[in-house]
């Protein structure tokens, strides 16, 4: 089976989905599930034909392990989020278009990951950008869609510049070959490195480009937020991967100034990653909207992934690649649970929710496991990847970046706990008395993702094997696993053992607990209130200003937030100036300008 067949099949299926959606949009939504499942299966079959070359019309493809890896992540996220689609169909203004775009963006990502040349890469990249832009606007906010597009456009246009520059220099568009022409041209290499990476940075939400993430993730349709955060953000990581593998940044800058063995340009990007970890963490802690909070956490985790991939060594690279998966899954899960809560209650504002655990315990448990992974706590997937990254950083002695990583990882306890506490725990507001648990259909993706999180956490070997393949493909040292144990130069990790010992401890505690007298169940309102009689559950629910002291400390927002707005206002001002200067309804003004132009040109020509 060739890749082109797969691509065309998928395209045909998505058109079918669209047509079906036109007749019955709910059925169409089920078709999205089927199609993404088919995609998953087909991609799985493609694993055997890695190395295959394919081309059609404008596009050329090459099946690589890394592309396969990335697209598997993407398809898993798409597939699981698709289960929510049927429930949101009647809330969409263009349900059929949503289904179509949903699948087209999936195809776009796949095509992008397997792209062999720049044009293919760029075209599929833009396909994803546009389809997702049109999906985001079906959510709460048009502005977010706008910001998303603008930031993406900044990234993609600058990257297009880099691609064409490379094409000009090398005469070829093939990614794996084109960059070779840059050897021996350090200045050009520098320009290409920064410009090429920019699309990745903007997509993964690295510091100055992170503004779109909270807006877009926060207000996209609830069904699409998991895809955005779990999937599309990871496209940026792919660009980062190209910039270290095909572009071979380490060789290109080998003669430049190095910091702890890292060439300065790469270090600068890593510092940006570190800044986005800090900014994402701080901002996530401050949010009231659960989806925005998770979006900022994506910013922070994007920083980890970027740092990991850019280090491009045995350890941190594997960590970054693994973090990609574990965060994709955890973040998708978290967004899905929040989406379900929003579906049942109609809001994602944490200060308006509370006590959901008593109504939706399964959703709660799933969310709990997701955030444990997201915060990097042992038995789950997030820990292994964070461990690898931190060990890698320690191996290189990158102090400041490690400091940011620590900040992000401790800070993540704070922000992941906030929705846990404010949405699921605490008092149940009376208006949510009749909220029901997620339906079976919604539970399926939650189970799937939770199992995945656990599997990665306990048996990271499953993923690390593939990552070792990628490392072999990229020509760097492969990550070593002995049995279940990850063995690296400065440490070993056996997550299975950690899991078993945790289970052991849990068992002991459980036994002691059961042996003691059974507790009496009291209502939530029967709680210590300094003997005051409170009958309003909302008053007893601590959810707004959850981290008030911390928020006081970080009150002054950093200036970049308004940067885009300022630039936009400036552009409008200049536009207004141009309009009022040059487009006056009075002919005399234009005649005046004609004379001025004549005079200037004349002077310029004479002198």
């Amino acid at each position, binding site marked *: 089976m060739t890749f082109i067949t797969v691509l065309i099949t998928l395209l045909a299926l998505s058109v079918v989905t669209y047509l079906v959606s036109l007749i019955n949009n709910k059925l169409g939504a089920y078709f999205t599930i089927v199609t993404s499942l088919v995609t998953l299966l087909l991609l799985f079959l493609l694993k055997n034909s890695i190395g295959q070359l394919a081309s059609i019309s404008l596009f050329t493809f090459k099946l690589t392990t890394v592309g396969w890896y990335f697209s598997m992540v993407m398809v898993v996220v798409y597939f699981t989020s698709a289960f929510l689609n049927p429930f949101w169909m009647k809330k969409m203004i263009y349900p059929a278009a949503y289904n179509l775009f949903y699948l087209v963006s999936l195809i776009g990502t796949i095509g992008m990951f397997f792209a062999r040349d720049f044009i293919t890469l760029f075209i599929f990249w833009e396909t994803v950008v546009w389809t997702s832009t049109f999906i985001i606007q079906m959510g709460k906010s048009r502005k977010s869609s706008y910001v998303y597009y603008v930031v993406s456009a900044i990234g993609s246009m600058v990257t297009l510049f880099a691609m064409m520059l490379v094409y000009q220099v090398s005469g070829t568009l093939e990614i794996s070959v084109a960059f070779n022409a840059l050897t021996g041209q350090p200045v050009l290499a520098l320009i290409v490195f920064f410009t090429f990476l920019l699309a990745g940075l903007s997509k993964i939400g690295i510091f100055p480009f992170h503004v779109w993430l909270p807006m877009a993730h926060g207000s996209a349709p609830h069904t699409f937020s998991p895809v955005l955060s779990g999937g599309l953000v990871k496209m940026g990581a792919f660009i980062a991967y190209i910039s270290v593998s095909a572009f071979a940044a380490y060789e290109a800058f080998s003669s430049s100034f190095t910091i702890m063995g890292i060439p300065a340009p790469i270090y600068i990007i890593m510092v940006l990653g570190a800044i986005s970890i800090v900014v994402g963490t701080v901002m996530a802690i401050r949010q009231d909207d659960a989806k925005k909070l998770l979006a900022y956490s994506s910013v922070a985790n994007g920083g980890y992934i970027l740092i990991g991939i850019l280090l491009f060594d045995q350890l941190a690279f594997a960590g970054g690649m693994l973090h990609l998966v574990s965060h994709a899954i955890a973040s998708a899960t978290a967004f899905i649970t929040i989406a379900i809560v929003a579906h049942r209650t109609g809001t994602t504002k944490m200060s308006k929710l509370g006590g959901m655990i008593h109504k939706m315990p399964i959703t709660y448990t799933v969310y709990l496991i997701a955030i444990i992974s997201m915060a990097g706590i042992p038995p789950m997937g997030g820990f292994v990847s964070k461990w690898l990254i931190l060990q890698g950083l320690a191996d290189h002695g990158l102090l400041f970046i490690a400091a940011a990583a620590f900040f992000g990882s401790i800070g993540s306890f704070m922000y992941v706990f906030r929705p846990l506490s404010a949405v699921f725990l605490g008092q149940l507001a009376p208006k949510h008395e009749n909220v029901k648990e997620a339906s079976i259909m919604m539970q399926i993706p939650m189970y799937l993702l939770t199992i995945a999180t656990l599997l990665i956490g306990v048996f990271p070997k499953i993923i690390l094997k593939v990552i070792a393949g990628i490392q072999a493909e990229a020509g760097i040292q492969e990550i070593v696993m002995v049995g279940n144990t990850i063995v690296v130069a400065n440490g070993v990790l056996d997550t299975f053992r950690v899991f078993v010992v945790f289970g052991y401890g849990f068992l002991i505690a459980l036994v002691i607990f059961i042996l003691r007298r059974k507790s009496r169940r009291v209502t939530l309102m029967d709680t210590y209130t300094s003997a005051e009689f409170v009958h309003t559950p909302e008053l007893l629910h601590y959810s707004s200003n959850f981290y008030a002291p911390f928020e006081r400390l970080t009150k002054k927002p950093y200036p970049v937030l308004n940067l885009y707005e300022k630039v936009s206002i400036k552009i409008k001002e200049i536009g207004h100036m141009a309009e009022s200067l040059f487009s*006056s*309804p*009075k*002919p*005399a003004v234009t*005649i*005046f300008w004609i*004379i001025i132009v004549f005079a200037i040109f004349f002077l310029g020509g004479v002198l």
Partner: protein
Amino acid sequence: MIRLASLLLLLIGLYGVLTTKNVIKMIISINIMELGVNIFIISVGFITNGVAPNLTEHIDSSLSNFVDPLPQALVLTSIVIGLGITSLGLAFARKMNKKYGTYDLTMIGGMKDE
């Protein structure tokens, strides 16, 4: 000399377009400009003591002091076009006056375009 004069006319016309507010005056200014250009065109083909470029037996075709006939042809066309534009402009001016009750563009320019 005549070229300077034509240039002067052109500049007068330009000055007129720049400074007047009345549409009729503007159109007149444009006319003056065109006049200047037309005179210039003529002057290009003009040769002192030139001969009319008529190919008859009386005139020696080897003479080199023919007046260039082309500019004269051009100027005719140009005058016609100028006439057309002037009349069109005046018609619009009349229409404008009918609609807004003024010939002054600045008065209308300030109005809202609705």
